[in-house]
């Protein structure tokens, strides 16, 4: 058979035409997408047996309970534990991705030392032995010459067993100080403690029995205390009748969900608190016994007489009727009044904190059910005699060796707050931390500590809790060989410096001792991990049963003491009324300048504290703002001839910095809402820590507050 050229071409053409109607072209297109992939960059997935472990989050003192799904022994997802007696099933975005932090690009994988000071300093690799050999002579020298400066330990999460180890360590050194970092305690409760010095036990908020919360900017729905507690209570208020009144100069997430939002002009919180005090006294809404039990009642009454709602309404930006109504509401219900510790803005100034805390004393809230509870601290054996002081109480230029603990409070503060405590030569700063954070720039030595979920740790009572609690954070993965926990580091340093032994030399032995103390107290109950059973401590066969329950992810909570005990308390404490001089005068508040208020999200104030996948919130959407941006009301922008996305220069007494503007209707006019936050993608390994950003522009006052700083902006 002969095949002509025409037939061949017809066949070929027909085949091509026919092939177009088959799946082949589509398949080729499909496969081309696959062939062109860079497969080496597609990660393989873990394989192995699936298990579940109950543990707890140690990223902040909230200590949320976690159910971890593990594959081949490694965690692949973390979720909250429904029905947990403390965290109520809550887990924040940082906790959800917390297991990724072990591989954070800014993870410290060995000790480092800074050579040089200031901008010329460079990070150079070191070893634990080198760090210890550099520090031991300093400790020895301090022992022999205490006048040249002393040792201070800065604990960012007090009331842990390791906190007591720190206190034992400094008690062996002349002048040694154990200090609490800003943000490690609730500011209202701290102020209240100074108002009622006779109060025994720990103070906490009995929110479970509260009917009204008056909050001066507390981020109740955005990371406050143990976040699940407030979120659970407020989201169920339709059944409980709980009401939230939020006084805040920005329409925050909490303000949005509040029953009443008082858009308060920032800086006038004390004025509002005293005006409420005025109404309470004027309308005789104060319990009669307060007049007798408060030594400074008459002084307080005289002071608040100047703060008539009608005269201060314009100062605070709140109508007089709203001030009076708020006072009547908190007086006619069981209520608590609280100020909020802003994760980047810190506490209010001391006078404001006292004015806010004083409302609780005025209402007789202290020791009252549904008010400020007095509860027993966590059972413990003998505690070191070294007192805990606030960082601000450390005399300036007195610290020659500063040791900063790596457990984060979730809050940040300006580095100048620490620098002023160091001796004139800059002292020596050692930081235990899993990451190279913005605060690392302060350190001379960086010692890598285990990341979250890498070591056995404790979850102690969250700040503001109304009863003590205790649980363990069980490791989900192996810590790097180079990681050093605080107990090991302190033991080695104490040994090299010739200090007495700190007792047991492992975290587990300290934690077992804590469990032993709890069992001896016979107090409280142990809730099984998924809330399946509750066993009273008194009914346990032995301390082994308690330890076993804790080791399986159980949570011990103390009994609530159902008794009312109103202690004697002051309303102003050591604060003299002249601290409020002029506060009731509109002229005092009429400033033409803008105010810079740093704002952060708890546990997300630096790049190192969030997993890179948090870029979903900060970079790949507008849900959270990246660090270094300033949110300003559009009216204020227009008045300054600026617009959204402009690059501006922000200037304060501390210096200048450029930032990108975000036009934001939720911010009160006249305020620069400065975001102190992470840049989750800016995580290329570096030998220089990131700067502290806009926080560095804040001016730290004598009382240690930095909440409001006068500032100006101009187009960069």
């Amino acid at each position, binding site marked *: 058979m002969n095949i002509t050229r025409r037939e061949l071409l017809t066949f070929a053409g027909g085949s091509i035409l026919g092939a177009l109607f088959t799946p082949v072209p*589509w398949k080729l*297109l*499909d496969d081309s*997408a*696959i062939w*062109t*992939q*860079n*497969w080496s*960059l*597609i*990660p*393989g*997935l*873990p*394989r192995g047996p699936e298990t579940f472990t109950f543990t707890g989050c140690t990223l902040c003192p909230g200590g949320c309970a976690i159910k971890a799904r593990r*594959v081949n022994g*490694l965690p*692949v*997802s973390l*979720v*909250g534990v429904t029905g947990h007696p403390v965290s109520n099933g*809550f*887990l924040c*975005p940082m906790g*959800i*991705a917390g*297991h*990724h932090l*072990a*591989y954070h690009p800014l993870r410290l994988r060995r000790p480092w030392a800074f050579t040089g000071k200031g901008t010329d300093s460079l990070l150079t690799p070191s070893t634990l032995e080198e760090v210890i050999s550099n520090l031991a002579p300093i400790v020895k020298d301090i022992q022999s010459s205490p006048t040249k400066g002393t040792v201070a330990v800065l604990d960012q999460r007090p009331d842990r067993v390791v906190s007591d180890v720190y206190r034992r360590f400094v008690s062996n050194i002349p002048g040694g100080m154990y200090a609490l970092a800003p943000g490690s305690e609730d500011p209202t409760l701290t102020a209240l403690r100074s108002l009622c010095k006779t109060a025994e036990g720990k103070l906490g908020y009995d929110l479970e029995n509260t009917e009204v919360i008056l909050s001066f900017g507390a981020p109740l729905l*955005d990371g406050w205390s143990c*976040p*699940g507690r407030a*979120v659970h209570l407020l*989201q169920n208020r339709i059944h409980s009748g709980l009401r939230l009144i939020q006084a805040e100069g920005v*329409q925050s*997430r909490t303000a*949005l*969900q509040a029953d009443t939002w008082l*858009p308060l002009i920032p800086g006038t919180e004390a004025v509002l608190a005293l005006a409420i005090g005025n109404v309470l006294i004027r309308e005789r809404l104060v319990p009669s016994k307060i007049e007798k039990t408060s030594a400074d009642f008459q002084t307080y009454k005289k002071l608040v007489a100047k703060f008539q709602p009608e005269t201060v309404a314009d100062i605070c930006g709140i109508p007089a009727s709203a001030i009076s109504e708020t006072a009547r509401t908190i007086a006619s219900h069981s209520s608590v009044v609280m100020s909020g510790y802003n994760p980047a803005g810190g506490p209010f100034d001391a006078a404001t904190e006292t004015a806010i805390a004083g409302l609780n004393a005025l209402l007789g809230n202290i020791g009252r059910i549904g008010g400020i509870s007095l509860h027993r601290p966590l059972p413990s054996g003998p505690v070191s005699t070294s007192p805990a002081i606030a960082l601000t109480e450390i005399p300036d230029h007195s610290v020659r060796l500063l040791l900063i603990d790596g457990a984060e409070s979730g809050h940040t503060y300006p580095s100048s707050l620490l620098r002023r405590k160091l001796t004139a030569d800059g002292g020596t700063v050692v930081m235990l931390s899993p990451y190279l954070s913005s605060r690392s720039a302060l350190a001379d030595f960086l010692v890598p500590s285990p990341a979250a979920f890498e070591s056995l740790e404790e979850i102690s009572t969250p700040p503001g809790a109304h009863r003590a609690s205790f649980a363990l954070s069980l490791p989900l993965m192996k810590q790097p060989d180079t990681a050093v926990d605080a107990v090991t580091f302190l033991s080695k340093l104490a040994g090299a410096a010739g200090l007495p032994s700190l007792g047991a030399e492992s975290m587990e032995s300290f934690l077992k001792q804590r469990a032993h103390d709890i069992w001896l107290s016979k107090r409280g109950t142990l809730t099984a991990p998924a809330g399946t059973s509750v066993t009273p401590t008194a009914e346990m066969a032995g301390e082994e049963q308690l330890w076993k329950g804790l080791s399986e992810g159980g949570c011990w909570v103390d009994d609530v003491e159902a008794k009312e005990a109103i202690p004697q308390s002051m309303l102003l404490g050591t604060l003299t009324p002249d601290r409020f001089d002029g506060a009731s005068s509109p002229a005092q508040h009429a400033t033409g300048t803008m105010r810079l208020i740093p704002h952060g999200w708890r546990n997300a104030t630096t790049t190192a504290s969030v997993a*890179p*996948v*948090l*870029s*979903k*919130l900060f*970079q*790949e*959407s507008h*849900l959270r703002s990246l660090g270094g941006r300033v949110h300003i*009301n*559009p*009216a204020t922008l227009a008045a300054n001839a600026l617009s959204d996305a402009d690059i501006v220069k922000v200037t304060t007494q501390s210096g200048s910095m450029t930032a990108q503007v975000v036009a934001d*209707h*939720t*911010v*009160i006019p006249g305020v620069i809402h400065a975001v102190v936050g992470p840049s*989750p*993608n800016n995580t290329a390994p570096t030998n220089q820590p990131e700067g502290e950003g806009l926080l560095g522009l804040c001016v730290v006052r004598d009382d240690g507050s930095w909440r409001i700083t006068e500032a100006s902006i101009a187009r960069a």
Partner: protein
Amino acid sequence: MVVDLDRCTGCGACMVACAVENNVAPAEQKATERTGVTWLRVYPVSNGENFPANDTVFIPMPCQQCGNHTPCVSVCPQNAVEVDPSTGIVGQIPQRCLGCRYCMTACPYHARYFNWWDPQWPEGTETLLNPDVAPRMRGVAEKCNFCHGRLHAARTKAAAAGNKEIAAGDYIPACVESCPSKAIVFGDLADETSEVSRLSHSNDTFQFLPKLGTAPKVFYHSAKEWVRKMADRAPLA
């Protein structure tokens, strides 16, 4: 799915839980809100008033699982988008995807995302990825599929127990599980006795862009009138 916008605090737990569950890689350095990949995105939306009359609502926007004339299905030249008739869930098959991005253009909810870069996790993190969800490659589109890995696991569990139907509670998407405010309710809309079905018919419940007739299977609830009115207007992004 029914999302109660009055309960949502915009914390972002759902977005992060979604990314961890579905192995969505962290953003590439140059990625922005337009080029990033967020299967579930929470949009803060303002009523446009100035302080203090301003009001903001946070709108979690996953794939709306359109039940009628599903736009992404009809435009895909590769048959890479399929609607599962048994669940109504719109699935995406990345291995078939050509990367033409017609589906992204067609989606009125901006709920589809394109992998502009190779997915990259910090070294070591790959050992912590969810073994039930394959990472996608550069050059393909992807979107929410109501955590298909979890649906598959629930089906496997039911089959192992000899059941045809999965038990209630065995299949919950990661966003629903992680929401601290319990603002998201998930279930079978076809089951008239279910909570989600009841909520979808309750007062003040609405769908986004109903005039398009796409019959989304994600419903929203808000007592605020301005929020409900906004649902009829243009897409959010």
